C-alpha cells in the first residue's frame, strides 16, 4: 500500500504543485488538497499510465451522486490507494 500511496502522492505533488510533505494517506484530494475536477483528470491520467489501469471515475462519481458511496471512499488517498491496488490485482487476475 505504501508504494502505491507514494506514487500517487508524487503524482499529485508534481501535477498540482502541492508540497509533497503536506500530502498524507489521510488527505482528502478534494477537501484537504483543494484539487478540482479538471486537475483530477491530469492525476487520473498519470495514475492510469503509472499503473496500467483505468480509474473508473465516472462510476465513482455516479455512486457518490446516487448516495451509494461517499467521496471519502475514493478520494481519501489511503482509500484511493486501496482502490488502485484492487484494480491492479484485477488486471492481473
Amino acid at each position: 500500500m505504501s508504494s502505491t500511496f507514494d506514487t500517487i502522492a508524487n503524482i499529485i505533488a508534481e501535477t498540482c504543485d502541492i508540497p509533497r510533505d503536506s500530502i498524507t494517506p489521510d488527505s482528502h484530494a478534494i477537501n484537504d488538497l483543494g484539487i478540482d475536477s479538471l486537475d483530477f483528470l491530469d492525476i487520473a491520467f498519470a495514475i492510469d499510465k503509472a499503473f496500467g489501469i483505468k480509474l473508473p471515475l465516472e462510476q465513482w462519481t455516479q455512486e457518490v451522486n446516487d448516495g451509494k458511496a461517499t467521496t471519502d471512499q475514493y478520494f481519501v488517498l489511503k482509500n484511493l490507494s486501496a482502490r488502485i491496488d484492487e484494480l491492479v490485482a484485477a488486471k492481473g487476475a
Partner: protein
Amino acid sequence: MRLEYFQLIDRIVDLNLADRKISSEATVPTASTIFEGHFPGYPLMPGVLLIEAMAQTSGWLVVALNRFERMPFLAAVKEAKLRTFVTPGQKLAITAHLEHDGSGYAITAAKIKCGGKLICDATLTLRVLDFPNAEMGRQMRETAGRIGLQVEAPVNG
C-alpha cells in the same frame, strides 16, 4: 472552414479506428471579418482557431471511436506551440491521435501541417459526456456526414 459557424474542418481525409488516428483538412478562407481585426493590414489566422481546429479534429476522432454515443468537450490545452503564421487561403492538414481513453475523458496529441511543414501542435484533454439532448446528437451526425466522417451510429442515439 466556415468560420462564421465555428466549423473549422472541411473534410475528414482518413479515419483509422484501430490505430486511433484521424486526419482532416481545412482551407483558411480568403476573406473573413476576423481578418479585419486580426490584423488590420496583415491578416493572420488566429492561433486560438488553429487550436480549435485541432480540438475539432480530435473531437471527431473521439466521436467516431464511441460511435456517436457520447460528446467530447475541450477541457484543457497543453504544450501548445504555434510555430509559424498561417494566412488566408492556406490549406491545412490536421491530424490527431488518441493517446489515452480515460473514464469520462480523452487525451489526444494533435498537429497541423501546411505544405508538409509542421505549424502547430498540442496535447488536448477532452471531457467525454452524454449528449445533453437528442438534437445535438442528431446535428453532430448530420455534420459528420457533411464532412465525410463515415461511422455507423446507433439508430436511436
